[in-house]
């Protein structure tokens, strides 16, 4: 089919129609843009009025949006075919990180390959793993059989183990979750789910045994933040103080004493929601939660509309993973979950996070049954 311009037919330009026709979901795109802009506004305050940081983050958002638009044009079949390759590459890179990775504070997370910008292979794995599990499970009838589940579990455990070894507990949990969601959506039987939960509970003491000291401290702090108020409890106490002192309406934009006087740690990255809570109050956070809710709701709709089982499983997993980010981050900042390094999606400062999130949304859009400019697909 020819485009409107090529056919010479004059049609008034309507963004919604345009986006619909060419695969960019208009509602989701708008919400992502709004949320990112909200993030930039908050970042300006949280970074201590650093225009440089806002500019950098803005550039990352822009890059992410472009990649999202680009990816939304890729044909579904191409993505399905490439999945095993990408997964294997990501796996190799993860091994490479353990061998020659660089990093700070005792964690090796980055790969510094000549000729490439420094990056974290675990980010690639965030999308490669659920895609791979979806690829594997949809090759067979659903719900999956035990033998297939076992192989899916192996696919999941190897990269998660490699990332946990960096150590990067937050990311490994998120990636494990994204793989698990695929299996869950593919129809994992409730019996196995129950057994897994029971096994998980039983394994807790073992997990406690292999945890690092600082990780244990974080868990203990959650139970009693006042046990070490200047050490492990500091972050949680200061974040809760910031949120609580914000009240309903907040102290005003860029007026939060906890954030501006630097009592709040990591105020522009992992704990940025405390800045929102302190300066914009309960209403500010609710506004953010509404935006997240709309994004997740739209994504769930897109999941059910997606083309093919692979597409649906992948979309569902990406959506739920996105939600896990939101939930874990807010839970950690508000003191109901232990402190793990999980950024607030689309808001926290950090280029890798926002780009990989938007790439994920691009993949979701690619799974939709629409026209594509690049692929020339005309279904």
């Amino acid at each position, binding site marked *: 089919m020819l485009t409107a311009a090529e056919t010479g037919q004059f049609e008034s330009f309507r963004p919604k129609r345009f986006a619909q026709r060419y695969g960019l979901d208009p509602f989701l795109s708008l919400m992502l843009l709004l949320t990112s802009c909200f993030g930039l506004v908050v970042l300006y305050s949280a970074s201590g009025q650093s225009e440089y940081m806002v500019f950098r983050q803005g550039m990352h958002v822009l890059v992410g949006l472009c990649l999202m638009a680009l990816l939304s044009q890729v044909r579904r079949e191409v993505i399905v075919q490439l999945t095993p390759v990408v997964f294997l590459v990501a796996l190799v890179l993860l091994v490479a990180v353990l061998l020659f990775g660089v990093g700070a504070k005792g964690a090796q997370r980055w790969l510094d390959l000549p000729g490439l910008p420094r990056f974290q292979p675990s980010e690639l794995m965030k999308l490669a793993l659920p895609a791979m599990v979806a690829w594997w499970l949809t090759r067979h*009838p*659903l*719900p999956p059989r035990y033998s297939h589940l076992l192989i899916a579990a192996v696919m999941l455990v190897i990269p998660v183990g490699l990332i946990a070894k960096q150590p990067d507990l937050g990311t490994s949990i998120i990636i494990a979750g994204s793989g698990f*969601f695929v299996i*869950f*959506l*593919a*129809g994992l039987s409730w019996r196995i789910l129950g057994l897994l939960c029971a096994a998980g509970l039983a394994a807790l003491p073992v997990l406690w045994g292999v945890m690092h000291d600082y990780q244990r401290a974080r868990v203990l702090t959650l139970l009693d933040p006042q046990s070490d108020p200047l050490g492990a409890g500091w972050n949680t106490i*200061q974040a*809760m*103080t*910031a*949120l*609580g*002192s*914000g*009240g*309903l309406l907040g102290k005003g934009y860029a007026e939060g*004493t*906890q954030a501006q*006087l*630097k*009592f709040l740690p990591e105020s522009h990255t992992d704990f940025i929601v405390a800045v929102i*809570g302190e300066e914009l*109050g*309960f209403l500010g*956070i*609710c506004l953010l*939660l509404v935006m*997240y*809710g709309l994004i*997740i*709701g739209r994504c*769930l709709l897109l*999941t*059910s509309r997606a083309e093919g*089982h692979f597409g*649906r*499983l992948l979309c*569902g997993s990406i*959506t*739920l993973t996105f*939600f896990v980010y939101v*939930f874990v981050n*807010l*839970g950690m900042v*508000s*003191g*109901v979950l232990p402190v793990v390094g999980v950024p607030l999606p689309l808001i926290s400062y950090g280029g890798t996070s926002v780009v990989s999130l938007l790439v994920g949304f691009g993949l979701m859009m690619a799974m939709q049954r629409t026209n594509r400019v690049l692929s020339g697909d005309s279904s």
Partner: protein
Amino acid sequence: MELRTGIRERQLIGQRVAIAGFGVAILLSLLVVRLSWLQLVEHERFVTASEANRLQTLPVPPARGQILDRNGVVLAENTPRLQLSVIPEESDDLTQLVAEVQARIPLSDDEVRAFEASLKARRRPREPVVIRDELTDEEAARLAVDAFLFPELRLQASPRRYYPYGGLTAHSLGYVGRLALEELKDIDERRYAGTQMIGKLGIERAYEEALLGQVGIERVETSARGQIMRTVDRQDPVPGDDIPVYLDIGLQAKLYDILGDRRGAIVALDPATGGLLALVSAPSFDANVFTGGVSSRLYRALQNDRDTPLFNRALRGQYPPGSTIKPMMGLVGLHYGAVTWQTRINDRGFYQLPGIEHKYRDWKRWGHGQVDMDKAVIESCDTYFYEMAVRLGIDELSAGMAPFGFGRRQGPDVIGDVAGILPSREWKRKDRREAWYLGETVIAGIGQGYWVTTPLQLATATNVMARRGSFVEPHFAVREDLEQGVRVNLGTSNDWERMIDAMEAVMHSESGTARASGQKISYRIAGKTGTAQVVAIAQDAEYDEDAIDERFRDHALFVGFAPADAPSMVLAIIVENGGSGGSTGGPIAREIFDYWILDRNEGATPPDLEFVEDVNTRVIARTYADGG
């Protein structure tokens, strides 16, 4: 079949997605519940916590009062300085920190050592420890650039106590020093919040209470790293009172100038008030080395100096008063009827107790011949006073001398002086657990034996002579209420006048022991010389000044006042190993009286500050020469 399976599978996924959506909704509401609990229910509690985080109450130290001399010349003031210190509790690695500081400003080995030493010393919790006492503007700027890297460092303006004439005033003003932990129990710690210095000696210590002032309070907003962002409110401190003192810095300089390299002490009193016009102990030191944390090397050099510049001879030096007490002793003898003005004795050059071989020698080997009281004072006849003391007895001797202030500490605002010893039967029993011997009474008659006095005591006692029988405590600070004095009930006013006439004759008559210093003069001096033995001379041995080591030579003493009939200054002079009082003390006294009465019109003419500074420079040169 294939299609049906597809539909079933699609339904399965749809079902699961719905379940997941349901889970998402539940978890999101849980978050909202948690947030509303934090932000709405517990709001007040967290507001309090965040205010406590933000606001800090800081003490604002008051400016210490100044010390002014009688003409209003500033003797102690506060000068601005920038100090670099660290709160050790906030630093993880102090060695690393010192290295970082050293990378930016030069630190001498001495400063690093001093810093390490003060780290080890006991101090108040969270008390800053000084790294560099005084920064130049350039150094401060270089540190300020990187200040955010080292929040534990404190770069603060902390006024420094400065003594413009530190060498001249060290022994009278004393100095301030770092507040030591042991001193905390004696003070109200809240008043010293933010103040690191406390008066350690002298006037600085005596008037600590008034000089200190009242601490102010400042509430500031601080960042998590302790940096002060802004002041929220402030209650200003009340500066300490200025303390005017009787000291005359011009006179003080003159005295140091006259003493030169000699060791000794001079005390000058205002007879009317007992005010200390000058208090000199030579050699001296620069008091300013103590206000900024003295380097250990300099301190050791000062301590080990054989001439003991840190030792306050005027207040703590204990010297036998020797013949200087003879006029007072004479009044005591007259009062208790041991002698009359007419009593004569025959001096053959020595005195012997009945039935005892030992000869108590007169300073004049062949004796003074026929001696009455006037001649005994004028020529300082020892034999007369040996005899008189024996007739008087030790009990009445010490009872009669006590009202002059001997044997006890002086003055309410004199810090650190010693009591000396006025010998008595009682004292010896208590202190030495021994009985009193008659022979000891004999030598007490000429101010020798157990009897030791400080130069300040000698001046105070001589002031009783100048005031014709009225005792006043010596004091530094100017007092509004004029001192009435305590009557010393010894003899009649005629006795006092006649004794003062004898003291004048010491200076101005042909036989006076200080006649050389009393010639060609437009006013009259009443004086008395004295010579204090440093080593005992063997029986029948001759004291030969040239033959013995300088350090074993006699101390030269002089006391006196002028003008004799209406005194404006009382002097007590001790020159260590200076030889005889007449030949050394007399000329010094004459020069001082000339300066005070003729050049300065009794202190009314303002001092020549250029001269003062010049003398001060000479006096403190020694401090740094030793330390360097």
